[in-house]
């Protein structure tokens, strides 16, 4: 009999006795389901935020900030500079021949979250110029577009789901008075966590005479270098030019922190579940000691016993992992979540349990199954045959 066949036989035999010990087997399954469920869910929260930020960045758009600024919030672009940027070479044109550029102001307003009524910062973005051409992905899906000059806002779909008082017709208090929400829009990315309006109107409300940034649509991704060179070589401008994809790829620091925290909590939980798995596999081995001793007595090698124990624990772990991932998918999929930052503004996103994250969860499950099985498997293989047979 080949070694492989021996292993397969012993494994099949071990597995066939599983239904006789459902309690102990379920310890592994439920323990690991808990770990994987929490891990996959938390990773999904972090990843959905950074993914939706990444999705917002396009390589054929460029964003221009003040050279000392890292983020739009702390950047300032003067009106004259905004004009020079729009006129730079490489900027695409709208149908009526104007440069496809939008000088924008990014401001923040506190609105209560639906979840707990806590006031949290939300981005309000004022757009200007040919914003409609630059940001072709903005689709108004309810109500209508804001009218420049009037105190009107349109709200991103996910933001509306996460915050109170953003339905069409609602009023939002900004400095200097109330604004009306006149429409809802979709973009499919992080931009859905904003309120959009006209830049000049927003600037007067926030007492600003400078923009935060200018975003331009390039003729093609390839002209970026030419566009950048033209701006950075202009001595009257002190600006920083980035591809939009590069700007948004940095993601949010907080989503990075959430991901680190997920792994930390996942690791500690995994350690706890591992002790449970070890317990189960030890007792599973001791419950089967007569059977294992008999197999060894009739000539099956220790290795096939080791494999059978390992396969058992890994299969149970895998089952647990799948259940955990399934629960996390069922609970989170299609839901929305918002992640803010102290003194900053929230990013509201739709949650998607991505297959790679499920893969990470299952990999953890397998490793836990393997680790939980190794020591008991070795004990099973070393079981003194005579003692085990006599003991019963």
């Amino acid at each position, binding site marked *: 009999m080949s070694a492989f066949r021996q292993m397969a036989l012993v494994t099949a035999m071990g597995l066939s006795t599983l239904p006789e010990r459902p309690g102990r087997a379920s310890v592994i399954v439920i323990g690991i389901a808990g770990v994987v469920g929490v891990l996959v869910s*938390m990773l999904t929260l972090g990843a959905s935020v950074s993914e939706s930020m990444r999705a917002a960045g396009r390589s054929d758009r460029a964003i221009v900030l003040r050279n*000392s600024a890292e983020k739009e919030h702390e950047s*300032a672009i*003067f009106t004259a500079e905004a004009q020079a940027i729009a006129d730079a070479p490489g900027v695409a044109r709208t149908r009526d021949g104007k440069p496809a550029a939008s000088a924008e102001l990014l401001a923040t307003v506190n609105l209560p979250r639906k979840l707990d009524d806590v006031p949290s910062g939300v981005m309000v973005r004022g757009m200007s110029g040919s914003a409609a051409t630059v940001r072709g992905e903005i689709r108004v899906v309810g109500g209508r577009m804001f009218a420049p000059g009037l105190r009107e806002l349109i709200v991103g779909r996910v933001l509306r789901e996460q915050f109170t008082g953003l339905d069409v017709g609602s009023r939002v208090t900004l400095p200097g008075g109330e604004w009306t929400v006149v429409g809802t829009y979709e973009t499919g990315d992080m931009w859905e966590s904003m309120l959009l309006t006209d830049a000049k109107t927003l600037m007067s409300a926030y007492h600003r005479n400078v923009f935060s940034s200018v975003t331009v649509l390039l003729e093609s991704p390839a002209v970026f270098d030419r566009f950048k060179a033209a701006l950075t070589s202009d001595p009257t401008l002190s600006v920083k030019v980035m591809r939009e994809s590069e700007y948004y790829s940095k993601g949010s620091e907080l989503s990075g922190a959430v991901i680190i925290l997920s792994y930390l909590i996942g690791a500690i939980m995994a350690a706890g579940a591992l002790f449970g798995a070890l317990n189960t596999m030890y007792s599973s081995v001791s419950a089967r000691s007569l059977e294992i001793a008999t197999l060894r007595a009739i000539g099956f090698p220790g290795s096939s016993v080791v494999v059978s124990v390992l396969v058992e624990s890994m299969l149970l772990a895998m089952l647990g992992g799948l259940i955990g991932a399934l629960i996390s998918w069922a609970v989170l999929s299609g839901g929305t979540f918002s992640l803010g930052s102290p003194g900053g503004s929230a990013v509201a996103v739709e949650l998607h349990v991505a297959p790679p994250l499920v893969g990470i969860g299952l990999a953890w499950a397998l490793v836990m199954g393997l680790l939980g099985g190794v020591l008991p498997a070795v004990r099973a293989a070393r079981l003194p045959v005579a003692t085990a047979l006599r003991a019963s």
Partner: protein
Amino acid sequence: MKYLVLVWAGLWRKPARTVLTALSVITAFLLYGALNGTMVSFDRWIGQAMGDTAVLWTTSRVNLSAGLPIGIVPVIERIEGIAAVDITHEFNSYWQEPENGVGVVVIDVERRMRHPSPWSVVSKAALEQMRRLRTGTVVGSAVMKKYGWKIGDRVPLTTGVARKDRSSIWVFDIVGTYDAAAAVSGADQIWINYDYFDEARAFGNGRVTGMVSVIADPSRATSVATQIDRLFANSPNETLTRSLGDMVRAELDQITNIKLIIDIVLSAVLFTLLFVTGNTMMQSVVDRIPEIAVLKTYGFSDAIIAALILSEAVLLCVGSALVGIALAAVVLFPLIGAAFRIGTLPMAPSVVAVGAAIAFGLACLIALPPVWRAQRLNVVDALAGR
């Protein structure tokens, strides 16, 4: 005493099993201690470090970044019960390289001299120097030391605040230093003149993040705060007045509903634990059925046997839980403290108490099925090993 011996013996019947179970309980409560403990301790720390109720912070109700016009300072000053008002406005900068961060605090020297902020130690002479020199700055002792600056040095700082001349580099002359009395608003900042700053900046002129009011009678803090906010209700500059602790808490609350996430994670952990430990406990009782039958034969009542099983579960769960929480306090808290640069926080007694209570509840739930099983035991069958 004799019962304790029995409980102890029962616990160590299979040492490997008990140790593994204890380890999983320890791990679970390590997580509980780290997550819940950090939340509670951090909140207490904010309360202590920033709990000065004699100081009220007034900011825009719209958002911190919206700012308030400096013109409302005299209006607030006139409110009865307010001893002094100062502006508060801060921004980030760096010296030479982006990693050399320096926090810049804009102050109104005249007002600061009249009523120095209670948490910072600065000499009147240094402020007097700053008043004389528009570009003068008083630098925190930690910054001086870190970058080797001396009084008289002229330091250029790169900021996110554009100047009217379109540059973002601000140059200041060091005229003095200060020490910080408390962890909040530490010595890692510099103070600059509001007049100079406001004149040179490109936008936001005449507006600051907010106002800090020192009130004469701290017990009237809430009513004074309401009074300030009522004064500006329905104006273009609606205000929100609160203590520093409340303001910091509100800013932190914005991240997400962390409490909810932690509660969900901990529920998952405890549910899993209930299952794992419950199963082990059940198994351990099943293994000892003949022994329990012997005890019953000797005349141990059902109640005593139930108490024995329950004590075993309580000892295992509560003991391990306390070890886990202690580990969180001793091992994880220093790490967390270092990460947030707030020093090691003490574990709040309430966290320990609630943790022990959870562990006790867990033990009772876990002991329930084995107790039930032991009660229904048929002594004759059990002794016969059936």
